[in-house]
């Protein structure tokens, strides 16, 4: 196993601009040795490192079956701003992978509802691609999840929708529902306008048989969880991915503590009922 306290070098293979402030970066690990030992699960994150600037925790947006490690990054702080100025061929530091993952074993014979807000779709794309790829493999051994699958995604405006060009492909396996806070009058928009909770009225699903994977702004996740529970989805079947200021990634720096949880090692993906008591508390 490679040492997760020291960054390894990775080269940016290509960059795809998603929106005005977000882009996807495909990385290839430089060392063959580490290439061999590096494995991750959908939902985990890496610490991306720019020497002299610092580190930022960024979720992995590719599937473990993809050839490259992808990160979909919105410009937010110094590190992500710096990364946004890099080009293909540039080298960055990476530590990881860290954290918990989306529990794929929970969805084997159940319906899956993926709910994402803004850049929160990045860690969920890892699951989406994983499902799309396992569905394609026709080997009887690779069991593709058999339940129905939905994606509910909300963004500020249509222009802020990440992976918009990939949605048609997602429709192979998912029913996709989109909404924006505000439609752009200059652009043709066929999705909904309004809160993401509103999308729930469009979806016909069986709450008792549904597993929810959710990532987005905390207020959105709180509102959405409340709605799901009102509709009868058991709290134990709702999984949410949290954002905090991870600094070490290994549960030894204390920065990302959320109640008794270390978001970096117990999370970022939590079972809702495990953190429920702390979600509403201000400044916890």
């Amino acid at each position, binding site marked *: 196993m490679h*040492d*997760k*306290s*020291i*960054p*390894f*070098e990775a080269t940016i293979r290509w960059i795809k601009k998603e929106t005005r402030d977000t882009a996807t970066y495909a990385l290839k690990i430089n060392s063959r040795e580490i290439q061999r030992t590096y494995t991750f699960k959908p939902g985990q994150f890496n610490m991306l490192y720019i*020497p*002299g*600037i*610092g*580190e930022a925790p960024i979720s992995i947006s590719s599937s473990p079956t993809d050839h490259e490690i992808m990160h979909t990054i919105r410009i*937010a*702080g110094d590190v*992500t701003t710096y990364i946004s100025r890099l080009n293909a061929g540039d*080298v*960055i*530091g990476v530590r990881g992978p*860290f954290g918990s993952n989306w529990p794929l074993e929970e969805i084997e014979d159940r319906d899956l509802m993926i709910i994402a807000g803004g850049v929160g779709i990045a860690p969920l794309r890892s699951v989406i691609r994983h499902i799309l790829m396992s569905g394609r493999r026709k080997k009887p051994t690779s069991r593709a999840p058999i339940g129905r699958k939905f994606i509910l995604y909300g963004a500020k405006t249509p222009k802020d929708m990440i992976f918009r060009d990939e949605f048609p492909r997602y429709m192979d396996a998912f029913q996709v529902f989109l909404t924006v806070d505000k439609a752009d009058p200059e652009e043709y928009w066929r999705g909904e306008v309004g809160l993401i909770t509103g999308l729930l009225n469009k979806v016909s699903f069986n709450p008792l048989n549904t597993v929810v994977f959710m990532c987005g702004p905390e207020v959105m996740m709180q509102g959405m969880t409340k709605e799901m529970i009102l509709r009868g989805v058991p709290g134990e079947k709702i999984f949410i991915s949290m*954002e*905090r*200021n991870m*600094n*070490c*990634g*290994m*549960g*030894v*720096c*204390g*920065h990302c*503590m959320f*109640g*008794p949880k*270390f978001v970096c*090692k117990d999370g970022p993906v939590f079972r809702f009922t495990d953190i429920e*008591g702390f979600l509403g*508390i*201000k*400044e*916890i």
Partner: protein
Amino acid sequence: MTKAKIKKDHLKLIFDRLKTSHRIIGPKVEGNVIVLAEIADLRDIPAGCKEQQGRGTYRLGKNSSQLSVASSQIFSFSVGPDSFKRFMSPPVRENFAFKKSKKGISISQNSSQVREISTAFIGMRACDIAALRLLDKVFLEGPVKDAGYDSLRRNSLIVGINCLYPGDNCFCSSMDTGPVIRDGFDMAVTELDDSFLLEIGTVRGREILNGLPIDEVSDKDLSEKVSKIEKCKKMIKKSIKVSELPWLIYRNLEHPRWADVAGRCLACGNCTQVCPTCFCNSSYDNLQLSGISKKLPELSGARIRTWDSCFSTNFARVHGGNFRPSRRARYRQWMSHKLAYWIDQFGSPGCVGCGRCITWCPVGIDITQELEALHAR
């Protein structure tokens, strides 16, 4: 042999034996305070001193305490602001060094980080040994082992001392961490009236005694130890009801007392610095001046890890926001972590009852009182 006895003036023999193979860290007076530092001579140990500790006060002197200390007593003093945390998880350390040039980046680990020389920690109290075992859980038993801590820890020899005179702010007995040392030591010492009772915890602890003039331990010696420790327990004034943890905190996360303590707390972080179990830290890049010569890399420096504190304003900062801007939330985070979250995370409270945070808080905030106050409706 698991127990032995030596004459009081033979303590020097043990010290000299240790000195041949170890750097020795122990209690020493610096600036009127008992700190932990390298000690070259047994006489560095402030024999017979007894400090007076209060909420936010500390006075050191021969007879400044109300406790009457037997005149022959050497280890009569209690814990000062330093804890052994400073040596196992140094306040500043280098994670790795980096260079960046047109060709790319290179990252190298500093090999001098691994200290070859063994360190003997002498005079560790039961609470400090308990604290060290808590730090082991944090740094060694997580998903990734902290290599720096691991090597420092493995190169350490622990010579504990059973407390016979507690500090005024101690409450180890209620936390079940002291005053008697039960495990986690190489050698544990009890100062009897005219000799030292030595209990051996490890092979390394036994080796120290090879060839030294030791005596048999009698039942009388053992009962003297027990009665002295019982006496010490009776002198402990403060306590926490561990049976109320963690629920007393969990049920009161919105208690008005948090706003009250926020009005007194300065958010200075002293309590986290002196606490032997507070482990929070921050890593950042330290840059060297570069670009002076064409031969030098464009950029070089090191990633440094320093102690940090949940009281720091920016501790819970993310881009575009801060999860704990108020002092109320930061004090609550600290105390809730110590007395509640820690139980969920590591199986026991994160407080060992050493009382340091009470003594060294500039405004005298007392964790035992703050907890008690959560009972008020």
